[in-house]
């Protein structure tokens, strides 16, 4: 909001923009946070699934920390963990948004064959990461240009 203040006895008038900038910042953080949440969910859900280990290995990590993921059990079925991985990631994005994104935030997976799933010619969903990143990039770039 842009506030107009009139001084005592109407001697002076001020137009204060500080709250306007605060509101713009909040809106941009909100939009960007929402876009990141959708992007994270898209990356997780579109990761090709065999046991679900790769899909559920995605983490949102802050300040260059390594993602913590359990060792793969070849007989295991990880597909029931997908929703909780997404929710945990979204919670971290939301916490960072409330603080004004003070730290470096990364979507990360330690799975060594993630590159093959993304780039391999036999992968069932090639370029799933690039697709989510492009969508986020276009959205966030749109917010920056339009301011909303």
């Amino acid at each position: 909001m842009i506030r107009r203040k009139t001084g005592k006895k109407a001697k002076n008038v001020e137009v204060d923009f500080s709250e306007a900038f605060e509101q713009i910042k909040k809106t941009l953080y909100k939009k960007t946070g929402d876009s990141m949440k959708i992007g994270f969910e898209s990356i997780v859900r579109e990761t090709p699934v065999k046991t679900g280990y790769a899909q559920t290995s995605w983490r949102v990590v802050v300040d260059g920390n390594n993602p913590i993921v359990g060792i793969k059990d070849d007989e295991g079925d990880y597909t029931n963990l997908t929703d909780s991985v997404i929710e945990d990631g979204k919670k971290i994005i939301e916490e960072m948004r409330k603080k004004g994104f003070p730290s470096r935030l990364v979507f990360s997976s330690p799975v060594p064959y993630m590159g093959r799933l993304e780039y391999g010619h036999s992968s069932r969903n090639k370029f799933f990461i690039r697709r989510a990143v492009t969508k986020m990039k276009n959205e966030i770039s749109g917010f920056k240009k339009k301011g909303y």
Partner: protein
Amino acid sequence: MLLIEREILGYLNDNWTQPPTIAWTNFNVSVNYQSDQDYLVPFIRNLDSVILEIPANCGAVRRDYAMGLNLLLRENTGTSSANTYVTALLNLFDRKEISTDNYEYSFSPLEVGPGFGQGPHFELPISIDFFVYSS
């Protein structure tokens, strides 16, 4: 498939003169991969499509794509032939503006990823992004 995708794949098909056979496995053509043959495996994925103008029904659209041009190389043959093939792909697509009958394509820099074993071949992932404006 959209005409945008068909035309740029046609451009690749018309201009690829190197020994690797183009394997159209991602376009409903079955290929019986031979271990003594190199292959180029193209695939295209639409990354995003954005309407740029209002009213939407007649506004311009920007479409972003990623194109994979993976090389399947005979195992244990080193990288000298791969370098030749990559140079050919660079000459064809890297940062190029390419016109076909109906579209103009703007290409980003070509990227080559770390290779890995894939059956009887060594797979070298190569990719490039491009965008097209269309009505």
